[in-house]
Protein backbone atom coordinates (compact mmCIF):
# COMPACT_ATOMS: atom_id res chain seq x y z
CA UNK A 1 0.00 0.00 0.00
CA UNK A 2 1.45 3.40 -0.92
CA UNK A 3 1.74 6.13 1.70
CA UNK A 4 -1.07 8.18 0.17
CA UNK A 5 -3.29 5.09 0.02
CA UNK A 6 -2.51 4.37 3.66
CA UNK A 7 -3.39 7.94 4.54
CA UNK A 8 -6.72 7.66 2.73
CA UNK A 9 -7.44 4.44 4.59
CA UNK A 10 -6.50 6.04 7.90
CA UNK A 11 -8.76 8.99 7.13
CA UNK A 12 -11.60 6.56 6.42
CA UNK A 13 -11.01 4.59 9.61
CA UNK A 14 -10.93 7.86 11.50
CA UNK A 15 -14.30 8.92 10.11
CA UNK A 16 -15.76 5.54 11.00
CA UNK A 17 -14.31 5.37 14.49
CA UNK A 18 -14.11 8.95 15.74
CA UNK A 19 -17.68 9.22 17.11
CA UNK A 20 -17.15 6.05 19.18
CA UNK A 21 -13.70 7.22 20.30
CA UNK A 22 -14.98 10.62 21.36
CA UNK A 23 -17.97 9.06 23.11
CA UNK A 24 -15.82 6.57 25.05
CA UNK A 25 -13.28 9.21 25.95
CA UNK A 26 -15.92 11.68 27.08
CA UNK A 27 -17.11 9.11 29.60
CA UNK A 28 -13.53 8.96 30.92
CA UNK A 29 -12.62 12.62 31.05
CA UNK A 30 -16.12 14.18 31.22
CA UNK A 31 -15.09 16.91 28.79
CA UNK A 32 -16.15 16.59 25.18
CA UNK A 33 -13.52 19.06 23.93
CA UNK A 34 -10.72 17.26 25.72
CA UNK A 35 -12.08 13.93 24.47
CA UNK A 36 -11.92 15.19 20.89
CA UNK A 37 -8.32 16.37 21.41
CA UNK A 38 -7.31 13.00 22.81
CA UNK A 39 -8.93 11.19 19.92
CA UNK A 40 -7.09 13.50 17.51
CA UNK A 41 -3.82 12.71 19.31
CA UNK A 42 -4.43 9.02 18.68
CA UNK A 43 -5.04 9.80 15.01
CA UNK A 44 -1.74 11.71 14.80
CA UNK A 45 0.10 8.73 16.29
CA UNK A 46 -1.63 6.38 13.84
CA UNK A 47 -0.67 8.62 10.92
CA UNK A 48 2.96 8.46 12.02
CA UNK A 49 3.07 4.71 12.68
CA UNK A 50 0.68 2.88 10.39
CA UNK A 51 2.44 3.68 7.11
CA UNK A 52 5.42 1.65 8.51
CA UNK A 53 3.74 -1.00 10.62
CA UNK A 54 0.69 -1.52 8.45
CA UNK A 55 -2.88 -1.03 9.64
CA UNK A 56 -3.67 -3.11 12.73
CA UNK A 57 -6.34 -5.82 12.57
CA UNK A 58 -8.66 -3.91 14.85
CA UNK A 59 -7.90 -0.28 14.09
CA UNK A 60 -10.79 1.00 16.19
CA UNK A 61 -9.56 -0.82 19.28
CA UNK A 62 -6.00 0.35 18.61
CA UNK A 63 -7.08 3.98 18.42
CA UNK A 64 -9.18 3.63 21.56
CA UNK A 65 -6.37 2.05 23.55
CA UNK A 66 -3.88 4.66 22.38
CA UNK A 67 -6.24 7.52 23.20
CA UNK A 68 -6.99 6.06 26.61
CA UNK A 69 -3.29 5.83 27.42
CA UNK A 70 -2.96 9.47 26.45
CA UNK A 71 -5.90 10.27 28.69
CA UNK A 72 -4.30 8.51 31.64
CA UNK A 73 -0.95 10.25 31.02
CA UNK A 74 -2.74 13.55 30.94
CA UNK A 75 -4.71 12.89 34.09
CA UNK A 76 -1.50 11.85 35.83
CA UNK A 77 0.29 14.95 34.67
CA UNK A 78 -2.55 17.06 35.96
CA UNK A 79 -2.19 15.21 39.25
CA UNK A 80 -5.80 14.23 39.09
CA UNK A 81 -5.06 11.22 41.29
CA UNK A 82 -8.58 11.13 42.56
CA UNK A 83 -11.43 8.71 42.25
CA UNK A 84 -11.71 9.40 38.53
CA UNK A 85 -8.20 8.10 37.92
CA UNK A 86 -8.73 4.97 39.97
CA UNK A 87 -11.81 4.19 37.92
CA UNK A 88 -10.02 4.62 34.64
CA UNK A 89 -7.08 2.49 35.73
CA UNK A 90 -9.40 -0.31 36.77
CA UNK A 91 -11.13 -0.21 33.45
CA UNK A 92 -7.88 -0.42 31.49
CA UNK A 93 -6.71 -3.46 33.47
CA UNK A 94 -9.93 -5.19 32.70
CA UNK A 95 -9.42 -5.39 28.97
CA UNK A 96 -6.49 -6.28 26.76
CA UNK A 97 -6.04 -4.41 23.53
CA UNK A 98 -7.67 -7.17 21.47
CA UNK A 99 -10.66 -7.38 23.71
CA UNK A 100 -11.48 -3.70 23.85
CA UNK A 101 -13.63 -3.87 20.74
CA UNK A 102 -15.76 -6.75 21.97
CA UNK A 103 -15.83 -6.04 25.67
CA UNK A 104 -16.83 -2.42 25.25
CA UNK A 105 -19.40 -2.98 22.53
CA UNK A 106 -22.43 -2.54 24.75
CA UNK A 107 -20.91 0.35 26.62
CA UNK A 108 -19.83 2.12 23.45
CA UNK A 109 -23.43 2.20 22.26
CA UNK A 110 -24.51 3.70 25.55
CA UNK A 111 -21.71 6.21 25.27
CA UNK A 112 -22.75 7.15 21.74
CA UNK A 113 -26.29 7.69 22.94
CA UNK A 114 -25.05 9.84 25.82
CA UNK A 115 -22.95 11.84 23.38
CA UNK A 116 -25.95 12.54 21.13
CA UNK A 117 -27.94 13.75 24.13
CA UNK A 118 -25.01 15.98 25.02
CA UNK A 119 -24.47 17.55 21.60
CA UNK A 120 -28.23 18.16 21.28
CA UNK A 121 -28.56 19.61 24.79
CA UNK A 122 -31.08 22.47 25.12
CA UNK A 123 -28.43 24.62 26.81
CA UNK A 124 -26.99 25.09 23.30
CA UNK A 125 -28.54 27.14 20.53
CA UNK A 126 -30.09 25.21 17.65
CA UNK A 127 -27.23 26.19 15.31
CA UNK A 128 -24.65 25.06 17.85
CA UNK A 129 -26.41 21.72 18.36
CA UNK A 130 -26.43 21.02 14.65
CA UNK A 131 -22.79 22.02 14.14
CA UNK A 132 -21.54 20.06 17.13
CA UNK A 133 -23.54 16.97 16.20
CA UNK A 134 -22.26 17.02 12.64
CA UNK A 135 -18.72 17.46 13.92
CA UNK A 136 -18.66 14.88 16.71
CA UNK A 137 -21.22 12.28 15.67
CA UNK A 138 -20.95 12.43 11.91
CA UNK A 139 -17.22 13.15 11.81
CA UNK A 140 -17.64 16.02 9.35
CA UNK A 141 -14.86 18.61 9.07
CA UNK A 142 -15.67 22.25 9.81
CA UNK A 143 -15.13 22.92 6.12
CA UNK A 144 -17.73 20.32 5.12
CA UNK A 145 -20.22 21.74 7.62
CA UNK A 146 -19.57 25.27 6.37
CA UNK A 147 -20.14 24.27 2.75
CA UNK A 148 -23.32 22.41 3.65
CA UNK A 149 -24.82 25.50 5.27
CA UNK A 150 -23.21 28.02 2.91
CA UNK A 151 -21.56 29.84 5.80
CA UNK A 152 -17.95 30.76 6.55
CA UNK A 153 -15.70 28.05 7.97
CA UNK A 154 -14.58 30.38 10.76
CA UNK A 155 -18.23 30.80 11.82
CA UNK A 156 -18.62 27.04 12.14
CA UNK A 157 -15.31 26.65 13.99
CA UNK A 158 -16.29 29.37 16.42
CA UNK A 159 -19.74 27.89 16.92
CA UNK A 160 -18.20 24.52 17.81
CA UNK A 161 -15.61 25.97 20.18
CA UNK A 162 -18.29 27.97 21.98
CA UNK A 163 -20.62 24.99 22.16
CA UNK A 164 -17.95 22.84 23.79
CA UNK A 165 -17.19 25.61 26.25
CA UNK A 166 -20.87 26.06 27.11
CA UNK A 167 -21.27 22.33 27.79
CA UNK A 168 -18.35 22.62 30.19
CA UNK A 169 -19.34 25.77 32.02
CA UNK A 170 -22.94 24.62 32.32
CA UNK A 171 -21.67 21.27 33.62
CA UNK A 172 -23.91 19.32 31.25
CA UNK A 173 -23.77 15.70 32.45
CA UNK A 174 -22.75 12.85 30.15
CA UNK A 175 -25.86 10.73 30.56
CA UNK A 176 -29.06 9.52 29.01
CA UNK A 177 -31.87 11.37 30.78
CA UNK A 178 -34.63 9.37 32.46
CA UNK A 179 -38.33 9.77 33.15
CA UNK A 180 -40.18 12.84 31.95
CA UNK A 181 -36.92 14.51 30.97
CA UNK A 182 -36.15 11.69 28.52
CA UNK A 183 -39.16 12.48 26.33
CA UNK A 184 -38.30 16.17 26.11
CA UNK A 185 -34.61 15.63 25.51
CA UNK A 186 -35.23 12.89 22.96
CA UNK A 187 -37.44 15.21 20.99
CA UNK A 188 -34.60 17.76 20.99
CA UNK A 189 -32.26 15.10 19.56
CA UNK A 190 -34.78 14.11 16.88
CA UNK A 191 -35.32 17.76 16.04
CA UNK A 192 -31.60 18.31 15.41
CA UNK A 193 -31.38 15.27 13.13
CA UNK A 194 -34.51 16.22 11.21
CA UNK A 195 -33.32 19.80 10.90
CA UNK A 196 -30.11 18.54 9.32
CA UNK A 197 -32.13 16.38 6.97
CA UNK A 198 -34.49 19.17 5.99
CA UNK A 199 -31.70 21.63 5.45
CA UNK A 200 -30.28 19.12 3.01
CA UNK A 201 -33.62 18.11 1.50
CA UNK A 202 -34.86 21.56 0.70
CA UNK A 203 -32.31 24.29 1.02
CA UNK A 204 -33.98 27.46 2.27
CA UNK A 205 -31.83 29.68 0.11
CA UNK A 206 -29.40 29.50 -2.76
CA UNK A 207 -29.41 27.86 -6.14
CA UNK A 208 -29.30 24.26 -5.03
CA UNK A 209 -32.58 22.58 -4.26
CA UNK A 210 -30.99 19.66 -2.44
CA UNK A 211 -27.77 19.25 -0.52
CA UNK A 212 -27.18 15.52 -0.46
CA UNK A 213 -24.39 15.40 2.15
CA UNK A 214 -26.64 16.67 4.95
CA UNK A 215 -29.43 14.29 3.98
CA UNK A 216 -27.05 11.35 3.98
CA UNK A 217 -25.56 12.26 7.34
CA UNK A 218 -28.95 12.81 8.93
CA UNK A 219 -30.31 9.54 7.55
CA UNK A 220 -27.25 7.67 8.77
CA UNK A 221 -27.45 9.21 12.22
CA UNK A 222 -31.19 8.52 12.34
CA UNK A 223 -30.51 4.86 11.54
CA UNK A 224 -27.83 4.75 14.24
CA UNK A 225 -30.19 6.30 16.79
CA UNK A 226 -32.95 3.79 16.01
CA UNK A 227 -30.40 0.99 16.45
CA UNK A 228 -29.02 2.19 19.79
CA UNK A 229 -32.36 3.37 21.22
CA UNK A 230 -34.61 0.60 19.87
CA UNK A 231 -37.26 1.07 22.56
CA UNK A 232 -38.12 4.60 21.42
CA UNK A 233 -40.96 4.61 18.86
CA UNK A 234 -40.13 8.13 17.71
CA UNK A 235 -36.53 7.14 16.89
CA UNK A 236 -37.98 4.56 14.48
CA UNK A 237 -40.59 7.08 13.36
CA UNK A 238 -37.94 9.63 12.37
CA UNK A 239 -35.85 6.96 10.64
CA UNK A 240 -38.95 5.86 8.72
CA UNK A 241 -39.78 9.43 7.73
CA UNK A 242 -36.28 10.10 6.43
CA UNK A 243 -36.02 6.75 4.60
CA UNK A 244 -39.28 7.39 2.75
CA UNK A 245 -38.47 11.01 1.95
CA UNK A 246 -35.02 9.93 0.74
CA UNK A 247 -36.63 7.45 -1.62
CA UNK A 248 -37.88 10.45 -3.60
CA UNK A 249 -34.72 12.52 -3.31
CA UNK A 250 -33.55 11.90 -6.84
CA UNK A 251 -36.90 12.45 -8.51
CA UNK A 252 -37.45 15.85 -6.94
CA UNK A 253 -35.48 17.73 -9.58
CA UNK A 254 -35.35 17.56 -13.34
CA UNK A 255 -32.26 17.64 -15.54
CA UNK A 256 -32.27 21.45 -15.41
CA UNK A 257 -32.15 21.35 -11.62
CA UNK A 258 -35.75 22.54 -11.26
CA UNK A 259 -38.04 21.06 -8.62
CA UNK A 260 -40.68 18.49 -9.56
CA UNK A 261 -43.69 18.39 -7.24
CA UNK A 262 -44.69 15.14 -5.53
CA UNK A 263 -47.74 14.61 -7.74
CA UNK A 264 -45.69 15.08 -10.91
CA UNK A 265 -42.76 12.86 -9.98
CA UNK A 266 -41.97 9.70 -11.89
CA UNK A 267 -42.93 7.11 -9.30
CA UNK A 268 -41.12 4.34 -11.14
CA UNK A 269 -37.90 6.07 -10.13
CA UNK A 270 -38.67 6.14 -6.40
CA UNK A 271 -36.18 4.03 -4.52
CA UNK A 272 -38.19 0.95 -3.54
CA UNK A 273 -35.46 -0.31 -1.21
CA UNK A 274 -35.66 2.86 0.88
CA UNK A 275 -39.46 2.73 0.83
CA UNK A 276 -39.37 -0.85 2.14
CA UNK A 277 -36.87 0.18 4.81
CA UNK A 278 -39.12 3.10 5.76
CA UNK A 279 -42.22 0.92 6.01
CA UNK A 280 -40.28 -1.60 8.13
CA UNK A 281 -39.08 1.16 10.48
CA UNK A 282 -42.63 2.48 10.76
CA UNK A 283 -43.81 -1.02 11.59
CA UNK A 284 -41.20 -1.21 14.37
CA UNK A 285 -42.48 2.08 15.76
CA UNK A 286 -46.07 0.82 15.72
CA UNK A 287 -45.21 -2.55 17.26
CA UNK A 288 -43.84 -0.85 20.37
CA UNK A 289 -47.50 -0.26 21.12
CA UNK A 290 -47.43 3.34 22.29
CA UNK A 291 -49.34 6.30 20.91
CA UNK A 292 -47.64 7.36 17.72
CA UNK A 293 -45.68 10.58 18.02
CA UNK A 294 -45.35 13.35 15.44
CA UNK A 295 -42.49 11.71 13.49
CA UNK A 296 -44.26 8.36 13.20
CA UNK A 297 -47.41 10.17 12.07
CA UNK A 298 -45.50 12.14 9.47
CA UNK A 299 -43.86 8.90 8.35
CA UNK A 300 -47.33 7.36 8.02
CA UNK A 301 -48.33 10.25 5.78
CA UNK A 302 -45.17 9.84 3.70
CA UNK A 303 -45.94 6.10 3.53
CA UNK A 304 -49.41 6.82 2.06
CA UNK A 305 -47.71 8.54 -0.86
CA UNK A 306 -44.98 5.91 -1.12
CA UNK A 307 -47.38 3.00 -1.55
CA UNK A 308 -49.64 4.77 -4.06
CA UNK A 309 -48.65 3.60 -7.53
CA UNK A 310 -50.22 6.64 -9.19
CA UNK A 311 -51.15 10.05 -7.74
CA UNK A 312 -54.85 9.20 -8.12
CA UNK A 313 -54.32 6.05 -6.00
CA UNK A 314 -53.32 8.21 -3.03
CA UNK A 315 -55.47 7.64 0.05
CA UNK A 316 -56.17 11.34 0.73
CA UNK A 317 -58.87 10.59 3.27
CA UNK A 318 -56.36 8.70 5.40
CA UNK A 319 -53.80 11.47 4.90
CA UNK A 320 -56.34 14.10 6.02
CA UNK A 321 -57.07 11.98 9.12
CA UNK A 322 -53.35 11.61 9.86
CA UNK A 323 -52.91 15.40 9.65
CA UNK A 324 -55.80 15.71 12.06
CA UNK A 325 -53.95 13.37 14.46
CA UNK A 326 -50.74 15.34 13.95
CA UNK A 327 -52.58 18.57 14.72
CA UNK A 328 -53.74 17.17 18.05
CA UNK A 329 -50.12 16.37 18.97
CA UNK A 330 -48.38 19.40 17.56
CA UNK A 331 -50.85 22.19 16.83
CA UNK A 332 -49.36 24.40 14.13
CA UNK A 333 -50.72 26.55 11.31
CA UNK A 334 -48.35 24.80 8.89
CA UNK A 335 -49.86 21.42 9.73
CA UNK A 336 -53.29 23.00 9.31
CA UNK A 337 -52.25 24.21 5.89
CA UNK A 338 -51.17 20.69 4.98
CA UNK A 339 -54.44 19.32 6.25
CA UNK A 340 -56.24 21.83 4.04
CA UNK A 341 -54.33 20.48 1.04
CA UNK A 342 -55.28 16.90 1.97
CA UNK A 343 -58.94 17.87 2.50
CA UNK A 344 -58.89 19.61 -0.86
CA UNK A 345 -57.59 16.44 -2.50
CA UNK A 346 -59.96 14.14 -0.60
CA UNK A 347 -63.20 16.12 -0.81
CA UNK A 348 -62.62 18.76 -3.50
CA UNK A 349 -60.71 22.06 -3.82
CA UNK A 350 -63.61 24.17 -2.51
CA UNK A 351 -63.33 22.51 0.93
CA UNK A 352 -59.59 22.97 0.94
CA UNK A 353 -59.89 26.62 -0.05
CA UNK A 354 -62.35 27.24 2.77
CA UNK A 355 -59.76 26.02 5.30
CA UNK A 356 -56.93 27.95 3.67
CA UNK A 357 -58.97 31.15 3.77
CA UNK A 358 -59.45 30.66 7.51
CA UNK A 359 -55.65 30.56 7.79
CA UNK A 360 -55.18 33.74 5.77
CA UNK A 361 -55.26 35.90 8.86
CA UNK A 362 -52.94 33.63 10.86
CA UNK A 363 -50.08 35.95 11.88
CA UNK A 364 -47.39 33.25 11.90
CA UNK A 365 -48.09 32.42 8.28
CA UNK A 366 -47.64 35.97 7.03
CA UNK A 367 -44.70 35.91 4.62
CA UNK A 368 -44.79 32.11 4.40
CA UNK A 369 -44.66 31.38 0.66
CA UNK A 370 -46.52 28.06 0.84
CA UNK A 371 -49.74 29.77 1.95
CA UNK A 372 -50.29 31.73 -1.30
CA UNK A 373 -48.77 28.82 -3.21
CA UNK A 374 -51.35 26.37 -1.84
CA UNK A 375 -54.12 28.92 -2.27
CA UNK A 376 -53.04 29.46 -5.87
CA UNK A 377 -53.13 25.73 -6.50
CA UNK A 378 -56.66 25.39 -5.13
CA UNK A 379 -57.90 28.44 -7.07
CA UNK A 380 -56.35 27.06 -10.25
CA UNK A 381 -58.20 23.79 -9.74
CA UNK A 382 -61.43 25.76 -9.28
CA UNK A 383 -60.76 27.51 -12.59
CA UNK A 384 -60.25 30.92 -10.94
CA UNK A 385 -57.07 31.49 -12.96
CA UNK A 386 -56.66 35.21 -12.49
CA UNK A 387 -56.72 34.99 -8.68
CA UNK A 388 -54.53 31.87 -8.83
CA UNK A 389 -51.89 33.64 -10.95
CA UNK A 390 -51.77 36.53 -8.50
CA UNK A 391 -51.26 34.10 -5.59
CA UNK A 392 -48.40 32.30 -7.35
CA UNK A 393 -46.73 35.64 -8.03
CA UNK A 394 -47.14 36.59 -4.39
CA UNK A 395 -45.61 33.27 -3.33
CA UNK A 396 -42.68 33.73 -5.73
CA UNK A 397 -41.93 37.06 -4.08
CA UNK A 398 -41.68 35.37 -0.69
CA UNK A 399 -39.36 32.41 -1.29
CA UNK A 400 -35.59 32.70 -1.11
CA UNK A 401 -34.96 29.55 -3.12
CA UNK A 402 -34.26 30.61 -6.70
CA UNK A 403 -35.38 27.29 -8.22
CA UNK A 404 -38.63 27.30 -6.31
CA UNK A 405 -39.20 30.90 -7.33
CA UNK A 406 -38.79 29.97 -10.99
CA UNK A 407 -41.35 27.17 -10.60
CA UNK A 408 -43.88 29.51 -8.97
CA UNK A 409 -43.44 32.16 -11.66
CA UNK A 410 -43.95 29.51 -14.33
CA UNK A 411 -47.21 28.47 -12.69
CA UNK A 412 -48.27 32.11 -12.50
CA UNK A 413 -47.65 32.51 -16.22
CA UNK A 414 -49.57 29.30 -16.88
CA UNK A 415 -52.59 30.69 -15.03
CA UNK A 416 -52.41 33.94 -16.95
CA UNK A 417 -52.48 32.01 -20.22
CA UNK A 418 -55.38 29.86 -19.03
CA UNK A 419 -57.17 32.95 -17.79
CA UNK A 420 -56.74 34.71 -21.13
CA UNK A 421 -58.25 31.74 -22.95
CA UNK A 422 -61.56 31.81 -21.05
Amino acid at each position, binding site marked *: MSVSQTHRTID*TIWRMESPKLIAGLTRMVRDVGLAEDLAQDALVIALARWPDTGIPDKPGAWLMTTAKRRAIDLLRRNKLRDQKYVEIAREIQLYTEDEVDHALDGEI*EDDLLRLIFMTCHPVLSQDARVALTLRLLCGLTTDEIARSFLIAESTVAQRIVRAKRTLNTEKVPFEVPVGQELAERLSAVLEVIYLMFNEGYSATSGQNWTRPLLCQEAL*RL*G*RVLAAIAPGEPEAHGLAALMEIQSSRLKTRINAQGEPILLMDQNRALWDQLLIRRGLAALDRAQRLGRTLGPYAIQASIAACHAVAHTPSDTDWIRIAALYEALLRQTPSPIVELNRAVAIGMAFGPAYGLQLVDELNTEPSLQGYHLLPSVRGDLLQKLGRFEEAGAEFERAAGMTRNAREQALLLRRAAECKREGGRT
Partner: protein
Amino acid sequence: MRFMMIVKATTDSEAGVLPSQELIDAMQKYNEELVKAGVLLAADGLHSSANAVRISYPEPGSKPKVVDGPFTEAKEMIAGYTLIEVKSREEAIEWALRMPDPHGNGQGEIELRQVFEMEELMESPESRVREEALRRKAQENTKA
Protein backbone atom coordinates in the same frame (compact mmCIF):
# COMPACT_ATOMS: atom_id res chain seq x y z
CA MET B 1 -22.70 5.63 -2.42
CA ARG B 2 -23.80 2.03 -2.34
CA PHE B 3 -21.70 -1.08 -2.49
CA MET B 4 -22.60 -4.72 -2.67
CA MET B 5 -20.45 -7.22 -0.84
CA ILE B 6 -20.96 -10.42 -2.76
CA VAL B 7 -20.07 -13.65 -1.01
CA LYS B 8 -19.04 -16.27 -3.53
CA ALA B 9 -20.40 -19.78 -3.37
CA THR B 10 -18.17 -22.69 -2.36
CA THR B 11 -18.35 -26.45 -2.72
CA ASP B 12 -19.84 -26.52 0.80
CA SER B 13 -22.50 -23.92 0.18
CA GLU B 14 -23.38 -25.59 -3.10
CA ALA B 15 -23.65 -28.96 -1.34
CA GLY B 16 -26.18 -27.37 1.00
CA VAL B 17 -23.87 -27.65 4.03
CA LEU B 18 -25.07 -25.05 6.53
CA PRO B 19 -22.43 -22.78 8.07
CA SER B 20 -21.22 -23.57 11.60
CA GLN B 21 -22.98 -21.96 14.54
CA GLU B 22 -19.78 -20.07 15.23
CA LEU B 23 -19.80 -18.51 11.77
CA ILE B 24 -23.52 -17.72 11.99
CA ASP B 25 -22.89 -15.92 15.29
CA ALA B 26 -19.94 -14.02 13.85
CA MET B 27 -21.98 -12.95 10.82
CA GLN B 28 -24.87 -11.88 13.01
CA LYS B 29 -22.54 -9.79 15.13
CA TYR B 30 -21.05 -8.25 12.02
CA ASN B 31 -24.50 -7.39 10.66
CA GLU B 32 -25.38 -5.79 13.99
CA GLU B 33 -22.26 -3.67 13.72
CA LEU B 34 -23.35 -2.55 10.25
CA VAL B 35 -26.81 -1.67 11.58
CA LYS B 36 -25.40 0.30 14.52
CA ALA B 37 -23.13 2.21 12.18
CA GLY B 38 -26.18 3.09 10.07
CA VAL B 39 -24.70 1.59 6.89
CA LEU B 40 -26.64 -1.65 6.34
CA LEU B 41 -29.33 -1.49 3.65
CA ALA B 42 -30.02 -5.15 3.00
CA ALA B 43 -28.45 -8.57 3.40
CA ASP B 44 -29.56 -11.98 2.20
CA GLY B 45 -28.22 -15.48 1.83
CA LEU B 46 -29.11 -17.57 -1.20
CA HIS B 47 -30.08 -21.22 -1.54
CA SER B 48 -27.65 -23.45 -3.42
CA SER B 49 -27.97 -23.66 -7.17
CA ALA B 50 -29.75 -27.04 -6.84
CA ASN B 51 -33.13 -25.34 -7.35
CA ALA B 52 -31.80 -22.50 -9.48
CA VAL B 53 -32.68 -21.75 -13.08
CA ARG B 54 -30.36 -20.24 -15.66
CA ILE B 55 -31.78 -18.32 -18.57
CA SER B 56 -29.39 -17.52 -21.37
CA TYR B 57 -29.59 -16.03 -24.85
CA PRO B 58 -27.04 -17.90 -26.93
CA GLU B 59 -28.59 -16.58 -30.12
CA PRO B 60 -29.44 -12.90 -29.94
CA GLY B 61 -33.02 -12.19 -30.88
CA SER B 62 -34.21 -15.77 -30.54
CA LYS B 63 -35.83 -17.65 -27.67
CA PRO B 64 -33.91 -17.96 -24.39
CA LYS B 65 -32.31 -21.23 -23.32
CA VAL B 66 -33.55 -22.38 -19.91
CA VAL B 67 -31.35 -24.71 -17.85
CA ASP B 68 -32.19 -26.07 -14.40
CA GLY B 69 -29.58 -26.26 -11.62
CA PRO B 70 -27.47 -27.46 -9.99
CA PHE B 71 -24.56 -25.83 -11.75
CA THR B 72 -20.91 -26.66 -11.49
CA GLU B 73 -18.11 -24.13 -10.92
CA ALA B 74 -19.05 -22.88 -7.45
CA LYS B 75 -16.69 -19.90 -7.81
CA GLU B 76 -18.83 -18.47 -10.58
CA MET B 77 -21.88 -18.40 -8.33
CA ILE B 78 -22.85 -16.33 -5.35
CA ALA B 79 -24.05 -17.50 -1.95
CA GLY B 80 -25.27 -14.18 -0.60
CA TYR B 81 -24.91 -10.43 -0.60
CA THR B 82 -24.81 -7.47 1.76
CA LEU B 83 -25.76 -4.05 0.49
CA ILE B 84 -24.23 -1.08 2.31
CA GLU B 85 -24.42 2.70 1.97
CA VAL B 86 -21.14 4.45 2.76
CA LYS B 87 -19.30 7.70 2.14
CA SER B 88 -16.41 6.40 0.09
CA ARG B 89 -14.91 3.40 -1.67
CA GLU B 90 -12.33 3.22 1.12
CA GLU B 91 -15.08 2.91 3.72
CA ALA B 92 -16.68 0.10 1.73
CA ILE B 93 -13.33 -1.73 1.60
CA GLU B 94 -12.90 -1.22 5.33
CA TRP B 95 -16.31 -2.77 6.04
CA ALA B 96 -15.66 -5.64 3.63
CA LEU B 97 -12.38 -6.38 5.44
CA ARG B 98 -14.29 -6.58 8.71
CA MET B 99 -16.69 -9.22 7.44
CA PRO B 100 -15.80 -12.63 8.87
CA ASP B 101 -14.30 -15.18 6.47
CA PRO B 102 -17.64 -16.29 4.99
CA HIS B 103 -16.79 -19.98 4.64
CA GLY B 104 -13.71 -20.75 6.71
CA ASN B 105 -12.57 -23.62 4.52
CA GLY B 106 -10.01 -21.82 2.41
CA GLN B 107 -12.61 -20.99 -0.25
CA GLY B 108 -14.02 -17.84 1.34
CA GLU B 109 -14.21 -14.97 -1.13
CA ILE B 110 -15.94 -11.61 -0.96
CA GLU B 111 -16.30 -9.42 -4.02
CA LEU B 112 -16.98 -5.74 -3.51
CA ARG B 113 -18.91 -4.00 -6.27
CA GLN B 114 -20.16 -0.43 -6.48
CA VAL B 115 -23.85 0.00 -7.25
CA PHE B 116 -24.82 2.36 -10.06
CA GLU B 117 -26.49 5.52 -8.86
CA MET B 118 -29.56 6.57 -10.79
CA GLU B 119 -27.94 9.72 -12.14
CA GLU B 120 -25.10 7.63 -13.57
CA LEU B 121 -27.63 5.54 -15.47
CA MET B 122 -29.74 8.50 -16.52
CA GLU B 123 -26.79 10.41 -17.84
CA SER B 124 -27.01 10.56 -21.60
CA PRO B 125 -24.18 9.06 -23.64
CA GLU B 126 -23.62 12.40 -25.36
CA SER B 127 -23.03 14.23 -22.12
CA ARG B 128 -20.58 11.54 -21.05
CA VAL B 129 -18.65 11.89 -24.30
CA ARG B 130 -18.62 15.67 -23.82
CA GLU B 131 -17.36 15.27 -20.27
CA GLU B 132 -14.60 12.90 -21.32
CA ALA B 133 -13.49 15.30 -24.04
CA LEU B 134 -13.38 18.11 -21.48
CA ARG B 135 -11.37 15.96 -19.11
CA ARG B 136 -8.86 15.06 -21.83
CA LYS B 137 -8.50 18.70 -22.74
CA ALA B 138 -7.92 19.65 -19.11
CA GLN B 139 -5.26 16.98 -18.85
CA GLU B 140 -3.53 18.22 -21.98
CA ASN B 141 -3.63 21.73 -20.63
CA THR B 142 -1.96 20.72 -17.38
CA LYS B 143 0.73 18.86 -19.32
CA ALA B 144 1.41 21.83 -21.58
